[in-house]
């Protein structure tokens, strides 16, 4: 077992990417009570918007702009018909829409831009960002237990700054009068309406902000890996939910802690499995690790429904 692998995943860009997406989901569910079951779709919108723009010759900034605007439009598209209805409808529509994005992405129809089911290779969209790296020349740099390429150090720096800024934004907004109205909506929409607040508009704002953060997570993820539609399926959305609920919904640091623990646990089980079950074929290790994540989620709901940092009086799954 290599403890360094676990330490590396804790700070990896992937963990930061999922922390961003989980903070986005925290705006949806933790703050507003919206059941967004398609956060992976927002991540896909983000990574496609960014990677296609850059690979077609657009600048990095234009790529970021397009991916975020894409998320805003996607949120409007999903929220417009569903936010006036009961919460279940948003869940149905988002889960289907996220799959639509993935299936369109992997279809051969738009292969010229999306790369079809093979996606886009890193060198098609990563260079503009990597060229901005202050860590030159490119090489492997070791620091304590961490050993990464300079481009990864640069990406991690930017990604974790983004996570910190976003967590700060969540803290500020959740403790503002705006956040208070959203918490009221989470409890009872009609009560909030009777007090003269525009519930529909506020729910839409929360959906947009959370979706934009999902897209930002998608951009970071694409930089840490590559654009691959099937890496963001339905299961990914449930991972993000697990992270949020594990850390504690409606808390500032919950989604970050959740993402870190989720990935650390995932790598830990992947390392432990071959030691305990030496006959296990390698391709079954990852599914086994995911099965344990599922068991973990069940235990969480039974024994600590409010998550690690959550306040049971404010939000919990069993109520």
């Amino acid at each position: 077992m290599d403890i360094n692998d676990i330490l590396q995943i804790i700070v990896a860009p992937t963990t930061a990417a999922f922390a961003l997406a989980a903070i986005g989901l925290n705006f949806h569910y933790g703050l507003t009570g919206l059941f967004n079951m398609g956060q992976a779709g927002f991540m896909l919108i983000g990574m496609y918007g960014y990677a296609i723009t850059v690979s077609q010759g657009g600048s990095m900034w234009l790529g970021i702009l397009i991916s975020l605007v894409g998320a805003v439009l996607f949120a409007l598209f999903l929220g417009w018909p569903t936010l006036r209805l009961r919460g279940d409808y948003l869940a149905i529509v988002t889960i289907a829409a996220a799959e639509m994005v993935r299936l369109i992405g992997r279809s051969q129809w738009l292969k010229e831009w999306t790369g079809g089911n093979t996606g886009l290779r890193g060198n098609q969209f990563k260079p503009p960002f990597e060229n901005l790296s202050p860590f030159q020349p490119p090489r492997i740099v070791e620091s304590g237990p961490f050993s990464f390429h300079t481009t990864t150090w640069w990406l991690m720096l930017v990604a974790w700054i983004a996570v910190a800024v976003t967590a700060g934004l969540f803290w500020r907004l959740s403790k503002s009068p705006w956040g208070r109205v959203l918490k009221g909506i989470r409890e009872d929409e009609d009560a909030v309406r009777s007090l003269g607040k525009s519930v529909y508009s506020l729910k839409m704002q929360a959906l947009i902000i959370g979706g934009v953060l999902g897209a930002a997570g998608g951009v970071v993820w694409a930089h840490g890996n590559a654009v691959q539609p099937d890496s963001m399926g339905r299961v990914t959305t449930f991972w993000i939910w697990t992270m949020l609920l594990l850390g504690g919904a409606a808390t500032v640091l919950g989604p970050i802690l959740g993402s870190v623990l989720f990935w650390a646990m995932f790598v830990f089980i992947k390392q432990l499995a071959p030691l305990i079950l030496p006959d296990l074929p390698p391709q079954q290790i990852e599914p086994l690790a995911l099965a344990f994540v599922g068991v973990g989620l069940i235990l969480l709901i039974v024994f600590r429904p409010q998550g690690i940092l959550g306040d049971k009086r404010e939000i919990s799954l069993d109520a």
Partner: protein
Amino acid sequence: MPDMKPNLFANVEAKPGSAKPDPIIVADGITRQFGGLTAVDVDHFEVQRHAITALIGPNGAGKSTFFNLLTGFDSANTGTGTFNDMKLDGMSSANVARAGMVRTFQLTKALNRMSVIENMRLGAQHQSGENVFTAMLAPLWRKREDEVTAQAEELLDRFQLLDKQDDYAGSLSGGQRKLLEMARALMSKPSMIMLDEPMAGVNPALTESLLDHIVALKDEGMTVLFVEHDMHMVRRISDWVVVMAQGKIIAEGDPHAVMANPAVQDAYLGSHHDTDLFEERA
């Protein structure tokens, strides 16, 4: 001059849809159908300003539906209405509340997973921090927040909930939640408050203070319209009673006259509401 308030209803005819000297609400030709059922069918309806009006009637009479129509929680199939000379047609429930007509609910809607003081603050209007962009800059809304908090504490004190301000609303008793809901509605300084069964589920000890609070609202210049089944309460505090049955207004008048009205007894109170059940059998 005698130190008595003039009777606002001195010259008002006691008949369905009668005109009031200074109406705050005027509604005409309001109908609401659910499939083939006509839940509300009101020709003309006025509510007198600065008075307490009770809306009574049997279950299924359409009182709550009518309430929902007036407050924008439901839209009528036909008809027009005004509140303070403002057109109510097509107005959203949030806009009705902002215009100064705030309601409470039959099933109390205290926000249980928020603290009492946060519930109260939520009731305030004109808080620029409820805009997502200004919310990010605390100095822009901090001052208003302090004002709102002071107002909330004052109201909580009046409703004897001040020592509970940091508790979650869910930990309050049913009656306290009713009080909280009413206090929260007052945060917006409304000109009219609509109470949907304010006494339902409230224990007798609290009933008295709730009644006093409602009368105090009138003394402060507010208009009150309430739905209630408790005839004792209706008789005690209302200036005017409107009776609905099967979607229509069947009678109006001062409490004592209305309760003596044979049509009202037939439709609602029952013709033998004074007689003892066992006497009847014997």
